[in-house]
């Protein structure tokens, strides 16, 4: 087990190194840099002014030097300066992480707390009206784009209540705080819950046909005990995988929700930084997302062992 963990950790480092190279190269392959964009915004092109600014930002240096400069800084905890705001990149990124983390965490909580029980119910009641109704709901959750759902929620809020849950860094009440995170999280969590529900249902259906379930029933175990203790415990593995993937996706994939609900989180900031080709922000944010994805995968693998004693990571 220890050797496996060490091997996985080394692999994680190699993966992150590869990602850093890919991010760095891809960003510079995209036509136009921050200087082009700054001058575009100013509506003129002056070659000497542009050259001066490129020199000031270090963009005139060879790409390898620029890469080493960035990685060196990253290892020292120096993420550089945002080209646009001219503030330390860390100061720009750090305040946005809790916002996105809160939103993603709530969305995951919704998806797990709604998706898993409904998946179990749907499987246990297979072929009933309830099962069909839940499957229709889950299908709609998968097919409705979250930006559409988000806008619909906002429009309905304005029409019905005359207000809307738009982001406010200093909410006046607990209710407002709940609304500004809870409503967007519901919009995102609806899709995730649908996915989790479908995975839980299919996994449960497979498990419920196993011999040991019949044995448990024959031994007089209650229906709830059979479904939630004996069956769900074994059906949960693929669900954990999906939740892990969703967790990783949500860190960078909330762009639409953050835009519609005007939440100043990581994803919207990343897209805005990309628009400006603000390399220090984009590179570091993508690296952060990569770290989260890799860490989430690692955690999921470790959870496998915890949930299923049959799985042992040996050499």
């Amino acid at each position, binding site marked *: 087990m220890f050797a496996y963990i060490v091997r996985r950790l080394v692999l994680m480092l190699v993966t992150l190194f590869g990602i850093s190279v890919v991010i760095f190269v891809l960003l510079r392959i995209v*036509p*136009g*840099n921050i200087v*082009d*964009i*700054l*001058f*575009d*915004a*100013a*509506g*003129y*092109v*002056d070659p000497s*002014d542009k050259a*001066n*600014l490129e020199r*000031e930002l270090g963009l005139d240096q060879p790409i390898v030097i620029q890469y080493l400069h960035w990685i060196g800084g990253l290892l020292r905890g120096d993420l550089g300066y*945002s080209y*646009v*705001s*001219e*503030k330390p990149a860390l100061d*720009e990124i750090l305040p946005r992480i809790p916002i996105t983390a809160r939103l993603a965490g709530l969305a995951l909580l919704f998806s797990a707390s709604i998706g898993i029980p409904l998946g179990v119910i749907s499987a246990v009641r297979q072929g009933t009206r309830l099962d069909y109704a839940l499957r229709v709901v889950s299908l709609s959750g998968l097919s409705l784009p979250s930006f559409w759902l988000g*806008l619909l929620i*906002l*429009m309905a*809020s*304005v029409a019905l209540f*005359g*207000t*809307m849950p*738009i982001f406010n*860094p200093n909410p006046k009440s607990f209710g407002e705080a709940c609304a500004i995170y809870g409503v967007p999280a519901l919009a995102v969590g609806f899709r995730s819950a649908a996915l989790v529900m479908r995975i839980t249902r299919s996994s449960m259906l497979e498990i419920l046909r196993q011999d040991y379930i019949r044995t448990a029933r024959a031994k007089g175990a209650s229906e709830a005990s059979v479904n939630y203790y004996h069956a769900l415990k074994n059906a949960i593995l693929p669900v954990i995988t999906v939740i892990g993937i969703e967790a990783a996706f949500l860190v960078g994939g909330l762009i639409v929700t953050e*835009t*519609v*609900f*005007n939440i*100043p989180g990581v994803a*919207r*900031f990343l897209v*805005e930084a990309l*628009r*400006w*080709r603000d390399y220090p922000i984009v590179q570091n944010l993508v690296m952060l997302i990569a770290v989260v994805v890799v860490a989430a995968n690692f955690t999921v693998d470790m959870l496998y062992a915890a949930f299923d004693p049959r799985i042992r990571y040996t050499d």
Partner: protein
Amino acid sequence: MRSVQALAAAGLCLLAASSLAFAAEKQGGILRIYHRDSPGSASIHEEATYSTNVPFMPVFNNLVVYKQDVAQNSLDSIVPDLAESWAWSGDGKTLSFKLRQGVKWHDGKPFTSNDVKCTFDMLMGKSAQKFRKNPRKSWYDQVVDVTTNGDFEVAFNLKRPQLALLALLASGYSPIYPCHVSPAEMRTHPIGTGPFKFVEFKANESIKLARNPDYWKKGLPHLDGIEFTIIPNRSTAILAFVAGKFDMTFPTEVSIPLLKDVKAQAPNAVCVVEPINVSTNIIINASAPPFDSPDIRGALALALDRPAFVSILSEGQADVGGTMLPAPAGIWGMPKEMLETIPGYGPDVNANREQARKLMQKAGYGPDKHLAVKVSTRNIPVYRDPAVILIDQLKSIYIDGELDVVETANWFSKVARKDYALGLNLTGNSVDDPDQAFYENYSCQSERNYTNYCNPDIEKLFDQQSQETDIAKRKKLVWEIDKKLQEDVARPIIFHARTGTCWQPYVKGITVMSNSSYNGYRYEDAWLDK
């Protein structure tokens, strides 16, 4: 005697009414406005978008400024700001200002003539400290230097008379910067003398300003502060305004179709539609085939059905004109009768196109041999949408256009290296003055003359109108120049857009400028009737 008494009574009534109006202006409250995007920086001098002017103009003062409660900017609406008065020398080559005394920067340091000199030296590229970008350097091409006489007098010495200098100085783009603050600091934490102090600028999130209690205009501003929440998503922003989360929309950002939605959902909202002095136009690469042919350029100008653009894109709410914004909002635009004599502006579109087809046939094209061209434009709806209509209209004269959508980051580089045949472009004029529009867009040496149109004869006329002090004579010259520019197909103007601004009924003291969208955001007179 009776008439004197009546006059006195009327005067008293007026006085009472004005004092009542003054008493009605309530102090306090935060004006909440949504902002359309995150500005590149807080430094007005380094940016060329009103995304910067709107939130940061309240931080500053100019030497002179367009009167903030008069919608139409003109030489007559210019009032003193940091200058108490101004005077032209007899030969029109020196513009001197007497400065206000006792004015303090937001950090407590005193304002002096040295700050004015520093600002303009930097704009002219003459100081050790440099702006990272200096997009309006050419505005001061005629200024030899700025000299001070003591702490409270300053003079602009010109190469030749230029009446328009005063108009340029009154623009929202001409704030006075403090000498003791570096350009880098001004980009992130601007210090001004204006009615509001800078508090915070969180990129992509918000901009906050607070009342300057030591503002040199006693009793102003009325508001405790202004908060801009950055909401790039237009639907969310409009919904939030309708829901009462904001007191005002971002100025001149509500399109005509959206305006209908706002009025339907918030019938009490006050909405104003005004021209923004931004023209939608065509840039032509006349230095390479096929548009090096005057016949094809002429045909292009004749093919345009301007009313169709106006009707489709803005439900009839736009103005057809030349380079200068047409009346009534514009001051220098050609009269309608003159405009209609220019090829392509006549009301009979079919006759114009028949003429265009003949020119195309003369150039070797016809029903069996179409000319294929790429129509390049930026990947933004206000650019893309008219480009699509243009392509459709060009079909009528044997031109098969293909839309070439260019990412914003690459647009100016592409245009600068002449890597285009035909482009759909938008040109904003920050000041309704011919000097700004002509020199910037059509002068042989201008960095913003994207088409490289260069006509020495017209260049002479530019200078002639610029030096003309008689407004009526200058206007005639301007019309002559504008007509010639359109006849030369230098940069065919399709239309001048109009857009809307809305605010809640309790917001008072807001005036939307009618011939520029860059100059009316001081907000010192704004107040909330709550």
